[in-house]
């Protein structure tokens, strides 16, 4: 089987995956790391915007992209745009690189935790001192 990018097979952060027609492609963990960190960023942004909309009437108004759905439309639209943009940018930078996955995971899990906590109304109230 032919192997693409053989020169890259030096680190354990690279793996060989089938590329069709009997070929094997060597790819780094960078694209996966970009997707994971971007998902963490998307979750965190969702939580932060949900809290911001809850705390401020001005921000709530700004996030009201579609009146029947209210601020939820803006919270989710902005979170999705930032998630996809960060994924695109990170993938552009990391697609050919091996990345320290431990750091990526810590950041992504923090983002995920922020997403869960800041969308939980009693925790939102706690932060706002209600």
């Amino acid at each position: 089987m032919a192997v693409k990018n053989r020169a890259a097979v030096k680190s354990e952060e690279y793996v060989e995956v089938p590329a069709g027609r009997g070929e094997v492609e060597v790819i780094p963990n960078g694209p996966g790391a970009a997707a994971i960190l971007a998902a963490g960023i998307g979750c965190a942004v969702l939580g932060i915007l949900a809290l911001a909309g809850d705390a401020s009437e001005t921000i709530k108004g700004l996030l009201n992209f579609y009146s029947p759905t209210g601020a939820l439309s803006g919270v989710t639209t902005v979170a999705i745009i930032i998630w996809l943009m960060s994924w695109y940018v990170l993938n552009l930078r990391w697609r050919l690189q091996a990345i320290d996955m431990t750091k990526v995971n810590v950041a992504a899990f923090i983002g995920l935790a922020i997403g869960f906590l800041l969308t939980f109304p009693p925790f939102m109230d706690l932060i706002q001192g209600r």
Partner: protein
Amino acid sequence: MEITSRDLWTIFHGLGFGALFMLAFSGALAELYRLSAPSVPAQLGAQERNLLNFHLSAMVILAWLAVLTGAYIVYPWYRAVPPEGAADLANYPRSLLLSSARTSEWHRIGMEWKENVAWLAPIAITMVAYVTMKYQRTIIRLQQMRLAVLTFTVAAFIATGIAGAFGALLNKYAPVRGGSNIILMEGESGGEK
């Protein structure tokens, strides 16, 4: 036997897309776990790979359909504002829940958490599907990546569980009603057997 258009959309949102997405988790978790078992061949066969990719793609589509129909079709009916002085709030679920101290927390905690936390699921499962499809069986060698994939899969499951459970309970206390009637089947009236 009839159903209203709003009932039908609520069923599509919750029972159709949401519940099917939940059901698909058991398969996805089992497959992701199996993918990383030492006894599995180093590479998946084409048929296995296609099946896994189809399963994950279906989950991504279901997750996005569930949140999009929820936010842009069902939720506007839920949060509709009643006319001033309206005594019957049956068609205004949010206002109905907030009208009593016994039910207001269903909205303040239940709906306000559900409406936001549900969106974590499609973001997480889209990432899980992409990484799994890209790295396939070799993910076993990338232990940190595998940890992230499994963690986000479980997180998506929890987020969907929260949204689904509160959705079912909210629909019990303040169902979304109204819309045009859709007759599914005509029956006989009057008689008892």
